[in-house]
């Protein structure tokens, strides 16, 4: 075990896969000598040279499409789109082309393409550099979508993503890059589509993604002091989604809270909630609650930004609300569907 940062973990996965497979190349803005806007690719240009680590012009559709063309013709590219917000510029190549070519061609070809990007609020980046757009990508058949929440998962999942023969969008979070954590020495890839249970508990299941995982862990500590034992699940990959692990947990706890940073409306939490509703309705003791961002753009002012971001206290509140439903201060609690918080 070694303790490294999330940034170093992504870098390590890239380095290990580039050493293992000479067809793996990096293509993106400033990924070369500069080391990437978030310094994730630092040192890779020096090790692998300009033919494996290519600085692209500032052209997101061109980057995604060029990487795709290379993926169709013998390479295994990892393209970097600096912010997930900029994926909107490249969506034709990601959604209409990369995601569809294997299917439209009747299975003639595999598409070993990874698009690395990063998302999320928390640095006063305002509304065009702070979105969480994973649900858009999950909605497109043909794409795999991964959101690692710590260094070990970042490294192991990225290695699997690079070895995958379908197009993958790998979504890092800008606030996690400095997070430290242990990574195993063996460097084994983590299989895609397998959730992990980070904390076991019998009272309420909390499914959290990306930065919300650590917040949920904090909420669980608080709730444990109050006698509520929370089970925390990090799905790690949204497509494929390990709904079975979530389902088994809900069958045990009877309660489910879903926490993600993306906008609540049409967010991925709605997908998880519906799946659980379909599969585990009879096991639910209370409505499912979501903790997410309200449907407003990400504001610039730190005071506004932190006011709309879901935090540990809101996760704890949501858990209390559904677990103590009908028994809050000795009166029937009015559940406000979809708010993810008390009003």
């Amino acid at each position: 075990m070694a303790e490294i940062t999330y940034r170093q973990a992504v870098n390590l996965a890239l380095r290990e896969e580039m050493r293992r497979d000479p067809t793996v190349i990096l293509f993106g803005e400033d990924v070369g000598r500069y080391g990437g806007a978030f310094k994730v690719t630092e040192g890779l240009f020096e090790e692998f040279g300009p033919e494996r680590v290519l600085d692209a012009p500032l052209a997101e559709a061109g980057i995604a499409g060029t990487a795709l063309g290379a993926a169709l013709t013998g390479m295994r590219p990892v393209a970097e789109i600096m912010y997930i917000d900029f994926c909107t510029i490249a969506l034709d190549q990601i959604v209409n082309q990369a995601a569809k070519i294997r299917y439209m061609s009747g299975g003639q070809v595999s598409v070993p393409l990874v698009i690395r990007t990063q998302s999320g609020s928390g640095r006063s980046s305002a509304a065009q550099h702070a979105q969480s757009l994973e649900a858009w990508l999950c909605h497109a058949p043909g794409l795999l979508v991964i959101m690692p929440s710590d260094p070990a998962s970042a490294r192991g999942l990225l290695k699997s993503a690079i070895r995958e023969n379908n197009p993958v969008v790998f979504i890092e979070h800008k606030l996690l890059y400095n997070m430290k954590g242990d990574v195993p020495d063996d460097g084994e890839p983590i299989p895609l589509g397998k959730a992990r249970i980070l904390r076991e508990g019998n009272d309420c299941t909390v499914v959290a993604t990306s930065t919300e995982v650590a917040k949920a862990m904090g909420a669980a500590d608080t709730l444990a002091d109050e006698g509520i034992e929370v089970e925390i699940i990090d799905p790690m990959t949204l497509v494929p989604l390990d709904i079975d692990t979530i389902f088994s947990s809900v069958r045990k706890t009877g309660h489910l809270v879903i926490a993600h940073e993306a906008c609540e409306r049409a967010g991925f939490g709605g997908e998880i909630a519906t799946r659980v509703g379909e599969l585990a309705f009879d096991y639910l003791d209370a409505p499912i609650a979501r903790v997410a961002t309200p449907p407003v753009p990400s504001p610039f002012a730190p005071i506004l930004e932190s006011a709309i971001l879901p935090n540990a206290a809101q996760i704890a509140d949501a858990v209390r609300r559904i677990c103590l439903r009908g028994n809050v201060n000795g009166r029937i609690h009015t559940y406000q569907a979809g708010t993810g918080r008390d009003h």
Partner: protein
Amino acid sequence: MTTVESRLPLAGHVSTEQAIGMLRTMALIRAFEDTASRLYKEGRLPGFLHLYIGEEAVAAGACANLRPDDYITSTHRGHGHVIAKGADVKRMMAELFAKKTGYCRGKGGSMHIFDFKLGVLGANGIVGGGIPIATGAGLSIKLRKTDQVAICFFGDGASNQGSFHESLNIAAVFRLPVIYLCENNCYALSTPQRCHQAVPRISDRASAYGMPGMTVDGQDVLAVYEAVKEAVERARSGGGPTLIEATTYRISGHHVGDSAPYRSSEELEYWRRRDPIEAFQQRLISAGIISEGDVKAMRKSIEEEMAAAVRYGEESPSPNIDEAYEDVFLGRNMHGVLI
């Protein structure tokens, strides 16, 4: 080797075999389009159909320069490019009939014919969508250090897409072996070129990217062949990309069903008189390279090939319903439900 040049003034460096091959390719494309159009109007083909009639010299002249391991990307009007690259018209027709034996097993259709064994990286339903993909093939060629090339076909309409600008810039910066072949067929659907771009010559844009650009008569198959030959040689020898504009005309409407009321009968008549197949055929006959009898025999063999293709397409089985769930990544839960 007998060259056409020696018997046809200004005709280029092609052998008689190559010249006859180009004529046959053009005639085969025309026959395919005529047949598909008839079948479509009879209600026997689902989906859309965009015909390449009138533009055959571009695909035939360009692809005559390619090897089987070279790449092309094509467009929604892609049958001609794919045939010129060597695709099997039986499997193409089966795809138009939405059959299991089609190139894409009935999951792509007219706008999405792929043949990765022949380097056909796809016709494309998104205007301009194939341009970055050809660029990526060029990057891959460069990194793998082979002497392959990629020809990227697109139209005058697509030359206004952002993907055109982004891709040509990338290809120029990395000196990629890609030939960007713009088929200027005078219309982006109904909008005439003069109304959708302020530069009359699309090839003028090449200088903005730092690559050579030229305009060629797209009705003259040998002129196209020559222009593309020079660009292919440059690309194979590491000299980077080229933008070629081939001026041509879409004789049909945008798709079968578009009566094209936005153009005059005089204009249409002008271009009908410049039919690339008739013109080249007459040149070859006048030069004594082929006879009227040869032409008849060629037409007959093409007719038979098309009849066989239609039979194959019609008689082939439809895909099994299960195949809707193949060739795509799928997640399932423990009960096998798709998620």
